[in-house]
């Protein structure tokens, strides 16, 4: 059989078809002209963003909402460097994003040519792997490998840098049926002996806590997690990345733990005699003072990435593998009748009653109230967040029921992530209501994407909790820097309603509690891109809070 001859650019499109890519978020430029010319005739939907950073975040949001790889595309030099924040965001949160960048022609590489940047060098520490195409005939293998690497094991972004002349070069196309990589063989099945040991530790425990994160969502293990929690009657606390891994309203749910977690989650961890950590990495925002974390507990750590085990805390029992696989095996070895956690769950019930998550209930429009109303009005929405106070309130006060309904930049904490990511989520799951819970600061970092959502008819709702401050930084200044609000006041920001209207989107403003629900309903019914400017209390703090460097049971309620 003869192999079809085609340009490198066409080979990229053909390869993307093979990987079942339906949409690309991108921005054209000189070094990707041949590729954009091929895209013109292709069935792949291209969404033209207004800044390459948004393309990367949109691909990331698309991926988190759907579980598929997200693809973004940019030109060489500044196009590629504008992707960097988005790639780093995806890397920190283990999201399979494929970034394709144009590069100057091979003969010019290294000569500081116009719009040349060494993007494989720049992204070395923030990609799972990256490629510079040296020859157009390598394109199919590189793309196949890139998708495989991005989506398997612990997922992560992969960048493919494609010199312009390799895009026009004619090559013989053959998509590989399989790939062989000597240095990449992720472990999926947990060691059965280790799993048996875990079961015996679990059955001996009197105060077990399941501490779970994004790994549960990535491996689609929510059902297995729920079965395990219910079989062993152990409370479940999730990290920020794990919101949606376990239903917030479940009697065994402790909500989030850590710096802005619930008191009862933190107390449970600190008093626990067995931490069952699944798909988590003991991040400093979770553990607080690491030497004082879970002082009485043995720790079982399940993760697909062996390098996470023992990185931050000592682990008594490591199990490397896929969470879903391991949980399935583990479920065979635990029996409900052997469980001894009755006193423990009673104690936790008491804590939950004594220390509920709460805020001041008065007539003022408080951000927590807005989030609660969103939760009541749109219980099945996909919530995307920006970063800061808005993110914490979105985590605390929305009632998450399903995986892939909470999308947030956890590891890198990227302001400006939410709006473009919500765009990607809505493109991936058009049947769902997608709401970006935003702050006025974060939203302004990528508000230019209003043009994208209007042009491409992507009806996301941006709920701005507008307090006129960079609220989380202001909160820290209030608490730890003598209320010296250095550079955190955003007075003089744009009128968000007019901004929405200027772009052809719907703009609504809410200043009273009684109008919150109606505004949300109106936004949903409009089926248009909408900004709701919730003018909320300016100096509301996220509470409770563990001060930096303290143990997580040293948690404070803030006014």
């Amino acid at each position, binding site marked *: 059989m003869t192999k079809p001859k085609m340009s490198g650019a066409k080979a990229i499109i053909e390869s993307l078809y093979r990987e079942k890519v339906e949409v690309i978020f991108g921005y054209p430029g000189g070094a990707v002209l041949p590729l954009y010319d091929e895209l013109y005739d292709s069935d792949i939907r291209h969404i033209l963003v207004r800044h390459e950073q948004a393309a990367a975040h949109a691909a990331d949001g698309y991926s988190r909402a759907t579980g598929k790889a997200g693809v973004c595309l940019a030109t060489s030099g500044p196009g590629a460097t504008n992707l960097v924040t988005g790639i780093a965001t995806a890397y920190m949160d283990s999201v399979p994003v494929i970034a394709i960048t144009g590069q100057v022609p091979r003969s010019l590489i290294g000569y500081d040519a116009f719009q040349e940047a060494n993007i494989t060098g720049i992204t*070395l*520490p923030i990609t799972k792997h990256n490629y510079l195409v040296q020859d157009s005939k390598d394109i199919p293998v590189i793309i196949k490998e890139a998708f495989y690497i991005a989506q398997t094991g612990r997922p992560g972004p992969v960048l493919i840098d494609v010199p312009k002349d390799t895009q026009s070069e004619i090559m013989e196309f053959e998509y590989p049926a399989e790939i062989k990589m000597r*240095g*990449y*063989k992720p472990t999926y099945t947990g060691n059965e002996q280790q799993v048996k040991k875990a079961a015996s530790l679990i059955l001996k425990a009197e105060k077990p806590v399941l501490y779970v994160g994004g790994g549960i969502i990535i491996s689609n293990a929510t059902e297995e997690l729920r079965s395990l929690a219910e079989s062993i009657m152990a409370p479940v606390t999730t990290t920020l990345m794990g919101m949606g891994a376990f239903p917030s309203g479940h009697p065994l749910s402790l909500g989030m733990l850590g710096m802005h977690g619930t008191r009862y989650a933190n107390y449970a961890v600190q008093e626990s005699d067995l931490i069952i950590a699944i798909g988590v990495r003991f991040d400093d925002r979770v553990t607080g003072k690491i030497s004082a974390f879970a002082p009485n507990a043995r720790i079982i750590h399940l993760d697909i990435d062996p*390098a996470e085990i*023992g990185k931050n805390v000592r682990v008594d029992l490591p199990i490397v593998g896929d969470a879903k696989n391991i949980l399935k095996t583990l479920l065979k070895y635990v029996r409900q009748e052997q469980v001894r956690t009755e006193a423990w769950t009673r104690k936790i019930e008491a804590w939950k009653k004594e220390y509920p998550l709460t805020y001041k209930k008065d007539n003022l429009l408080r951000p927590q109230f807005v989030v609660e109303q969103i939760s009541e009005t749109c219980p099945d929405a996909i919530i995307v967040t920006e970063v800061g106070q808005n993110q914490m309130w979105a985590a605390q006060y929305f009632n998450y029921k399903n995986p892939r309904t909470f999308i947030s930049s956890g590891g890198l904490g990227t302001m400006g992530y939410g709006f473009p990511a919500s765009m990607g989520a809505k493109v991936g799951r058009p049947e769902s209501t997608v709401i970006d819970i935003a702050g006025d600061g974060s939203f302004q970092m990528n508000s230019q994407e209003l043009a994208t959502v209007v042009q491409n008819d992507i009806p996301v709702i941006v709920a701005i909790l507008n307090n006129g401050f960079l609220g989380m930084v202001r909160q820290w200044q209030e608490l730890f820097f003598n209320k010296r609000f250095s550079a955190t006041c955003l007075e003089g920001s744009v009128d968000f309603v007019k901004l929405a209207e200027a772009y052809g989107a719907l703009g609504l403003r809410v200043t009273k509690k009684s109008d919150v629900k109606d505004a949300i309903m109106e936004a949903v019914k409009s089926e248009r891109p909408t900004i709701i400017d919730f003018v909320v209390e300016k100096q509301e703090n996220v509470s409770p809070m563990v001060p930096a460097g303290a143990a997580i049971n040293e948690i404070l309620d803030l006014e």
Partner: protein
Amino acid sequence: MKHTLAILVENKPGVLTRVAGLFSRRGFNIESLAVGVTENPDTSRMTIVVSGDDHILEQVMKQLNKLIDVIRVSDIPGDESVNRELALIKVGVDSTTRAEVMQIVDVFRAKIVDVGIKSVVVEITGDESKINAMEQLLRQFGIREMVRTGKVAMNRGAKTVQTEKH
């Protein structure tokens, strides 16, 4: 505590950068590094000496294993392995000292590989301490220039570092 790691990698451009970059960004210190192709032309072998406690060593090895182009990482234990370094040392000599330098070279089973009127180049192979000792002795004559390769290491006996990961 020093550890010697043998790292089998794909023989491709950019792999050294990936490995070296990993050490610097994770805060691990490279004491010495030597790279060359193996019996299989698709595979290169790096020998990296790293200092740190067992926890650091474990993290280094796990992080290295995450690199796609890294095929295998092994810790080569010092007492069960052959360790060698090579050094070229240019020593200043004149008619009165040349003989003495040559004697020292003989004692160390090193070689003189270049002879000039005012200098000789000594080639010495051995473990780190042997080369250090040689350097000490030659210092009195005036070392004009010295270059050392990083350490290379191999397990004694039948044990080998295979290209198959696990």
